[in-house]
């Protein structure tokens, strides 16, 4: 365990020293600032309209506040997307990068097991990626609340699902980086990400058009890559009742959000998949020639 923590610490220091963390923080601050400025202008406009309509104020959960609810929801979609992008890009060379640069040889010649090394890399990168998504979520939802006074109904379960999604993605990326070159891994994981999104689209169309085959295909894609299903689960928690009703009316003709909660089995499977990917990476790397 000491070696795992040592490698994890090294990965964290690497992320800091290679300016990964500072670039992320600056760009995230810019993103949040840009987005929240939009929300701020929206809120002012809505308030103006309310005053013009002779209303005393707006109900935070009423239909008049739908634009704000949508901004919070799709803001979180951007958080999920940016978190996924960042999770893959930061982790894509976690193991393969060090093999390709030759750094790995002198490290592996030390009394550290390969499994410990992979576990340490995973721990370090998962910590960075999870912290990033948590921070961005808090920044976005906190900002929206500060400006508009609105908070999505179940923000914490939603954030938890997003953190699980980024953990799954990190684990699969670590596994890929023990199997493939950095470039091939990056392409592979993005294709998987696409598969997850495809699952969401197929399910949505399948439900909308009442086509069981499409729904089954969607289920397969979701099992293969549960990140999108986790986002859809999070989106359910981010919508007040009125938005869910809007979703029900459109019979799910929107692949970005869901009006039903995520299946508990899929959450369990996502966690198992993350663990399996890590174990497979540890096993695979232990048997690999360097």
């Amino acid at each position, binding site marked *: 365990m000491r*070696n795992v923590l*040592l490698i994890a610490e*090294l990965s964290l220091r*690497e992320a800091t*020293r*290679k300016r990964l963390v500072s670039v992320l923080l600056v760009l995230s601050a810019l993103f949040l600032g840009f987005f929240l400025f939009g929300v701020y202008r929206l809120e002012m406009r809505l308030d103006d309209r309310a005053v013009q309509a002779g209303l005393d104020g707006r109900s935070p959960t009423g239909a008049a506040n739908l634009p704000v609810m949508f901004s919070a929801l799709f803001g979180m979609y951007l958080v999920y997307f940016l978190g996924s992008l960042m999770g893959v890009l930061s982790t894509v060379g976690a193991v393969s990068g060090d093999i390709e*640069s*030759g*750094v790995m*040889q*002198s*490290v*592996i*010649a*030390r*009394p*550290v*097991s390969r499994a410990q090394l992979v576990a340490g890399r995973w721990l370090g990168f998962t910590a960075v990626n999870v912290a990033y998504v948590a921070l961005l979520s808090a920044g976005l939802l906190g900002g929206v609340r500060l400006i508009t006074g609105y908070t999505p109904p179940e923000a914490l379960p939603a954030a938890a699902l997003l953190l699980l999604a980024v953990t799954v993605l990190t684990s699969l990326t670590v596994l890929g980086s023990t199997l493939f070159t950095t470039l091939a891994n990056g392409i592979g994981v993005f294709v998987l990400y696409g598969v997850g999104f495809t699952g969401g689209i197929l399910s949505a169309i399948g439900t909308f058009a009442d086509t069981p085959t499409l729904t089954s295909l969607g289920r397969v894609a979701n099992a293969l890559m549960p990140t999108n299903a986790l986002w859809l689960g999070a989106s359910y928690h981010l919508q007040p009742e009125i938005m869910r009703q809007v979703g029900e009316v459109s019979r799910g003709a929107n692949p970005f959000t869901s009006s039903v909660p995520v299946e508990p089995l899929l959450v369990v499977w996502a966690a198992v998949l993350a663990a399996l990917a890590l174990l497979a990476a540890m096993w695979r790397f232990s*048997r690999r*020639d*360097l």
Partner: protein
Amino acid sequence: MLGGMSEAAIDTRDLRKTYRGRAVVDGLSLTVPRGEVFGFLGPNGAGKSTTVKMLLGLVQPSGGEIRVLGGRPNDPAVRARLGFLPEQFRFQTWMTASEFLDFHGRLAGLSAAERRTRIPEVLGEVGLGGRGHETLGGYSKGMLQRAGLAGAILARPELVFLDEPTSALDPIGRVEVREIIERLRARGAAVFLNSHLLSEVEQVCDRVAFVKAGRVLTQGSMRELMGGVLPVDLRVDTLTGGLLDTLARLGEVRRTDTNTQGRADVELWLTRDDQIPAVADAVHAAGARLYALTPRRPDLETMFLDLIEDTPEAARAGRGEVTRA
């Protein structure tokens, strides 16, 4: 099975590595005693680096047996007693040299107190004293190789693998590396030196092995490999017939050169060190003046070419040299 041989620093039996059906290492058997400097020689593609990687547990053998310091290289406890300078000395460029050594010291299990004293010590030893605070990204190739060498000797290993350790170094650096290797030997550590620089190997190695196509062609001490021959260069002012007879009794006169007026050069092959003073005595007894009496290390380059190049031309050239006298 290898009982009794576990005393050796390295012991391999019939070691094999095949990549996609092609044998890179093909039945390699090698014994490196403890506390000796061992030269591992062979042409490009002979399987030297793959062998080193198997000895370090970086590559899994396809067959055969490996014992390193009495254990298996896959065992972290064995690797804790090894040092390694890879041929491609690439390290985390974002670290300073001190951080790099601290990281490796922690991996090797050195305590914080040990690391505090040992890191400046090894930095000084490899000629990087006072430069530990600079990041490796700003180091020159030679400095990087020195830093890698510092990492290899950091944890006071019992066996150090040096893969082309002077490839990026200037002549001064090469001499310094030789001194480091000699200090390691003096401390009782074994050194496994993989090098193309035959003169370097000649100067520091106690034993060498020649490999070709993944097999050991021959291994042994330098003297054993040269058939117990000790070549000596002798220069005197005049070479009388009586002196030549005495020299021929002491050893084998391989070559004489009296072309230059007032100077005679003789190449003499002796069998023992203690014959060297007898040569000096014979020169004095013959009334000649002695200008030089130089024992030579066996010439690895000749040996290398003889062994490695099995083309008919090379074989003829090799025989020609032996029958020259």
